[in-house]
């Protein structure tokens, strides 16, 4: 298929369709309205269901229902809307159901603003809702990668019976870039024997539930979830390294910020500063090993985020005090500029 120039939100929606998603429940919020808009046009063409719910809470519970019936289902929203969905997401995680949740992050807290931000990192990677659970969180840094990640997200969700989040930002949602749709590498996905598709008397009844009153039973469920998270950590951690072979300084950045950082690293290299980037493509599971390894090689780290400093905590945990980890954050809905990052790199080098 030829390359198409597409908006991020539209590419995300089309990728979901191509991945076999036939149910979409959502509620409008800027800057991701093009996802439901596209779905409302496209779903009927593939005999799927687009439904604009009466609220975000309703939408995520519709996702819960469709996922329980074994359907490939997605919802998308932006920060305040994702906050509203957290209860449902926690239920879905406990009920061990696969689904894809897209968060095109805007500024916060509160209703905040509609410009890009990375302020939802904590919410996405450390829980968000209540209880001991994790989402698999994929953080695209281009429109092509957003499409690829959405397509793979459905496989990951089905494979581990776990919700997967696409963590983008307003820039990823609104920008247009060339995109091609490729099917992800084939996986052995177990049959959904657990799905509540109607009881025919020949199998065990499928019960979709997240309530376990007996502590002994809850303990079994919790242990099972934690074991699965360990498996996900082993199998699904993704990271991209850029010019790290001989790097003396390492920028840690994900999503939109990472592509700005690339421009900064190229400028730094022209000035003779050996800089590189470690870009987590999965922010949960976090690629701690890559940072741990780099800590033996580089002189220092610079974490760049569109937040007050969230991922930097994971970087510091991974580096474990071996080398200094500095932080540069931009808030309010602005992107960091390559020159500002470069300046911070120079400061790091000069030990300021």
């Amino acid at each position, binding site marked *: 298929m030829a*390359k198409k*120039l597409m908006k991020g939100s539209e590419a995300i929606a089309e990728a979901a369709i191509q991945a076999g998603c036939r149910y979409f429940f959502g509620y409008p919020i*800027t*800057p991701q309205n093009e996802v439901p808009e596209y779905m409302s046009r496209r779903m009927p063409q593939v005999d799927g269901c687009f439904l604009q719910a009466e609220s975000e809470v309703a939408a995520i519970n519709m996702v819960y229902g469709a996922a329980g019936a074994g359907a490939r289902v997605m919802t998308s929203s932006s920060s305040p809307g994702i906050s509203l969905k957290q209860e449902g997401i926690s239920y879905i995680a406990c009920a061990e159901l696969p689904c894809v949740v897209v968060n095109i992050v805007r500024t916060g807290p509160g209703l905040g603003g*509609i*410009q890009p931000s990375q302020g939802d990192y904590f919410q996405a990677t450390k829980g968000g809702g209540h209880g001991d659970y994790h989402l698999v969180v994929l953080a695209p840094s281009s429109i092509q990668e957003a499409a690829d990640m959405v397509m793979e997200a459905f496989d990951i969700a089905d494979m581990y019976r776990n919700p997967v989040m696409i963590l983008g930002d*307003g*820039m990823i949602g*609104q*920008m*247009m*870039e*060339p995109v091609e749709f490729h099917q992800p590498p084939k996986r052995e996905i177990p049959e959904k024997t657990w799905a509540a598709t109607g009881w025919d008397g020949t199998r065990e009844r499928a019960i979709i539930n997240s309530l376990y009153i007996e502590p002994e039973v809850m303990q079994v469920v919790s242990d099972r979830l934690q074991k699965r998270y360990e498996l996900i950590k082993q199998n699904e951690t993704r990271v991209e390294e850029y010019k790290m072979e001989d790097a003396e300084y390492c920028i840690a950045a994900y999503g939109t910020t990472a*592509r*700005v*950082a*690339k*421009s*900064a690293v*190229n400028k730094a290299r022209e000035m003779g500063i050996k800089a590189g980037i470690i870009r987590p493509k999965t922010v949960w599971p976090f690629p701690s090993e890559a940072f741990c390894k780099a800590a033996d090689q580089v002189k220092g780290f610079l974490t760049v985020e569109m937040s007050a400093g969230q991922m930097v905590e994971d970087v510091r945990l991974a580096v474990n005090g071996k080398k200094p980890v500095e932080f540069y954050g931009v808030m309010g809905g602005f*992107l960091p*500029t*390559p020159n500002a990052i470069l300046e911070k790199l120079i400061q790091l080098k000069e030990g300021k």
Partner: protein
Amino acid sequence: MLHQMISAGFGGQGVLLLGQLLAYSGMNEGKNVSWLPSYGPEMRGGTANCTVIISDEEIGSPVVVDADCVVAMNRPSLDKYENNVAPGGKLFINSSLIDQKAKRTDIEVYYIPCNEIADQLGNSRVANIVMLGAYLKKTGVVKPETLIKCLEEKLGKKKAHLIPMNEEALKKGAECVD
């Protein structure tokens, strides 16, 4: 090659489409491209703008601060973006709607009466294409043929009859800055 531009004007003047056609053409000529609209509490009749980057290299920040070129289709856009033209860059002004001159002396400035030419061609909506004609003539960033092909794809069969007028608009725009 790295080409960074800003296209700005009233909503409805086709400034976003102007940028999209550049990005589309760049892509079809094998370049890396990005197109980023301003999105905010804008509405029809308000101001709209987008930034386009066309590059041989992978594109870092899609935000353009120091633009190689700026297209200003209305006066507020000129006020807002004149200072974003990098020294030595090019500024394209729609002189049909903007009666003031550029203040900068360190850049090349072109005045194109886009709306008047479009009206002469019989459709005021091709003013943005007139501007593109001048833009391509002076920047050479993509070939006019590529752009027309993209427009054909975008308009589809139903609106194919509009292509000759758009070709004419590109030509007239180019003649303006000859």
